[in-house]
């Protein structure tokens, strides 16, 4: 088990190292940030001064070495645009993203699980068709479109909800729904297929033969077991929600990590993009590591097989 964990941790570091190399060099392909900090037509001297200020006049490998050295010390660098440490920016935005992701996750489970159950118990019926339609729309409609339609209806026409910003529960509703719908669809599909698996198993057939009411069979016997893969998926989705809500956070001016990433990309703020991606990647890697370890604890075949 110890060896298994060490190996998994090693893989994690390797993944993060590869991620750091990829993002560091990839972000530099997007262009020169100095040209976005001056008006078009600025002199070469102005641009050179900015390069020097941000250390962009050094060789790439030196820049990467400095980046990794800072990273090893927990320093993600200083934002070109905001001129404050990236760690501080990230930690300021993280609670907002966690809040949005939690509410969106709650909504997605609230919608996805019951509709998945209904679809599974009436295969081919109305609820199954409705669920499939719901999932299809959720997975295929771009979240910016959902967001803009919500704003149009609930802010502009009805005037019920604020169109953007944060601070109250009302501000949360639309962005949480826009973000949650996609994941609700995915949770609905997972619940449906998981329920169908469980409903076809021998112990459920036995329960039915014993004459238990269908409601009891579904809620007490099938649902609990069907829930395990759904919750595993939800755990990973939660981390993804925190880190990839770029479009939703931008449309609703929600001050989260996703918008920070958007701002970083927009201004070619290399340290912000690098920091946000590394932190998001680290979260996903850590969650996966924990899941792997838990699986190994639960199932000896995994740790012994590896």
């Amino acid at each position, binding site marked *: 088990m110890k060896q298994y964990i060490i190996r998994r941790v090693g893989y994690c570091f390797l993944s993060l190292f590869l991620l750091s190399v990829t993002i560091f060099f990839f972000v530099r392909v997007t262009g020169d940030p100095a040209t976005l900090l*001056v008006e078009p037509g600025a002199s070469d001297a102005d641009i050179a001064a900015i390069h020097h200020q941000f250390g962009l006049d050094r060789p790439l490998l030196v820049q990467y070495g400095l980046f990794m050295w800072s990273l090893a010390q927990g320093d993600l660098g200083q934002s070109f645009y905001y*001129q404050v440490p990236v760690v501080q920016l990230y930690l300021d935005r993280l609670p907002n993203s966690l809040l949005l992701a939690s509410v969106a996750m709650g909504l997605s489970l609230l919608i996805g699980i019951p509709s998945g159950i209904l679809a599974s118990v009436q295969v081919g019926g109305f609820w199954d068709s409705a669920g499939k339609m719901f999932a299809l729309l959720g997975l295929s409609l771009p979240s910016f479109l959902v967001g803009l339609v919500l*704003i149009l209806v609930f802010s502009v026409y009805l005037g019920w909800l604020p169109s953007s910003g944060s601070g109250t529960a009302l501000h949360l509703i639309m962005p949480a729904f826009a973000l949650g719908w996609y994941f609700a669809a995915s949770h609905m599909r997972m619940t449906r297929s998981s329920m169908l698996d469980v409903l076809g198993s021998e112990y459920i057939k036995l329960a039915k033969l014993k004459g238990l009411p269908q409601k009891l069979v579904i809620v007490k016997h099938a649902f609990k077991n069907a829930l395990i893969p759904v919750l595993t998926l939800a755990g990973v989705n939660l981390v993804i929600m925190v880190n990839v809500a770029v479009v939703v956070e931008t*449309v609703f001016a929600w001050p989260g990590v996703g918008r920070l990433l958007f701002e970083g990309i927009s201004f070619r703020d290399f340290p912000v993009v690098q920091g946000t991606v590394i932190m998001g990647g680290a979260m996903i890697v850590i969650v996966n590591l924990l899941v792997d370890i838990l699986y190994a604890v639960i199932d000896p075949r995994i740790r012994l097989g590896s």
Partner: protein
Amino acid sequence: MSPSGSRKTAADAAGAGSSISRRDLLAAAALGLATAPALAPTIARAAAPQGQLTYGIHVSLAPTWFDPAETQGIITPYMVLYALHDAMVKALPGELQAPCLAEKFSASEDGLTHDFVIRSNAKFHDGSPVTAEDVKFSFERYHGAAHDVLKKNVAAIETPDPTHVRFKLKEPWPDFLTFYSSASGAGWIVPKKYVEKVGDDGFKKAPVGAGPYKFVSFTPGQELVLEAFEGYWRKTPAVKRLVMKVIPEESTRLAALKGGEIDIAYSIRGELAEEVTHTTGLSLKPVVLQAPNWLYFPEQWDPKSPWHDVRVRQAVNFAIDREGMNKALFLGYCKTTNSIVPYTFADYWQPPAAVYDPAKAQKLLAEAGHGGGFDAGLLYCDSSYSNMAEVSLNNLAAIGIRLKLQPIERAGFFGGYAAKKYAKGVIQGASAAFGNAATRMENFVVKGGSFAYGSYPDIDELFPKQADEMDPAKRAAILTKMQQLVYEKSIYAPIWQLGFLNAVGPRVGESSFDRISGFAYTAPFEDLTIKA
């Protein structure tokens, strides 16, 4: 959301001078002196700033914008600087170089000394007076885009007394005031004692300035809150509180404006701008920026190229349907021009208006021996403005000049433009850089200019002459001659100065848009009002 109470207070603010009725005065007289102290605060309250205006800002606000020492060569930080800080000399309505914290300023005849006298009632938000030491400190502390050029030219700063500052130059430099007043943050004054106490980072977290609005709070990526500074020398602001909310998505900004969540929305373009004009209660506020766009012919110095013939370049000028393009793309709010120098710049020369005459263009082409047209290669442009380039391309195709569009991502385009990579074909360029006619000529026309792919000796000869000329009238005459030569030689085919479209809601009285020529945002902030 704007507080409902602000409507009443706006009425007070708008009519501060007449808010005490005859009945009030009669009542006060009837009650005698005993009521006088009670009335006095009433007067103060009536004149005090009240209400709140909320902005929807299109970009994320950066703390570097709170510190004039860090201003780069872009206009965006001035969106905040005009509220928080004040300059010795800056642009105000109707005046490009208006005395602000400096009550008066003058230059010696030899152009080597510039004297500034500080206004006696100029104060910082912490109540301390603006002194000569603060002015000197602010200049020395400045390390923004124009740092090198300022340091290269300024020999020393003297402070003979607390209200008097003297800049001594190494040699006559007629552009000193341009750079000190508008093309840099060096002339925007910060309190020396406070900055030394809190440090540069502390200053960005809680800036103290001498502008009409005090800093209250800043949440990165979310909002900046400002409050009126009643001790501002020019006037007491009418609006008590300004909230600048960052709303990056244009449609969301418009929705927030429609829903009354914000009062002023920056940058509403295209179809959304058209929607503003059709929405009751909303008004579109277009501003013409100091950002001309043009077509440039980098092959004009190559005798083998068709572009070498001035008639071909003149033909392009006649072939472009500027007004049609303007109406189609910017609702007609750009200002068509025939110069690469913004009309707001000092020493701008007004050329004859650009004319759309495709028949004349074809005639000129035929005279130049290209009656059947010619393949002109690529039309390079910043991809953000490829819609403009498409129209130009079609206009030129109509007279037989065939180009292929080559849109390049903005930063890459300007990098390539400056690196002289687009030596063949045509370039659709632009510049929003600060300066005056001389700085524009320096960068885009004369030999060695950052964006000049070639030059003409007669123009080059004039450039050093204007730089040495200290008599403003004579200098203006030289710069005028240079601009005339640029026009006559058709070095460029200018198109327009870009229109920046904004929108305001029904609560806004004076929005302060377009009061300072070429400035994109609301200013002066102290002139903002809320409707009754």
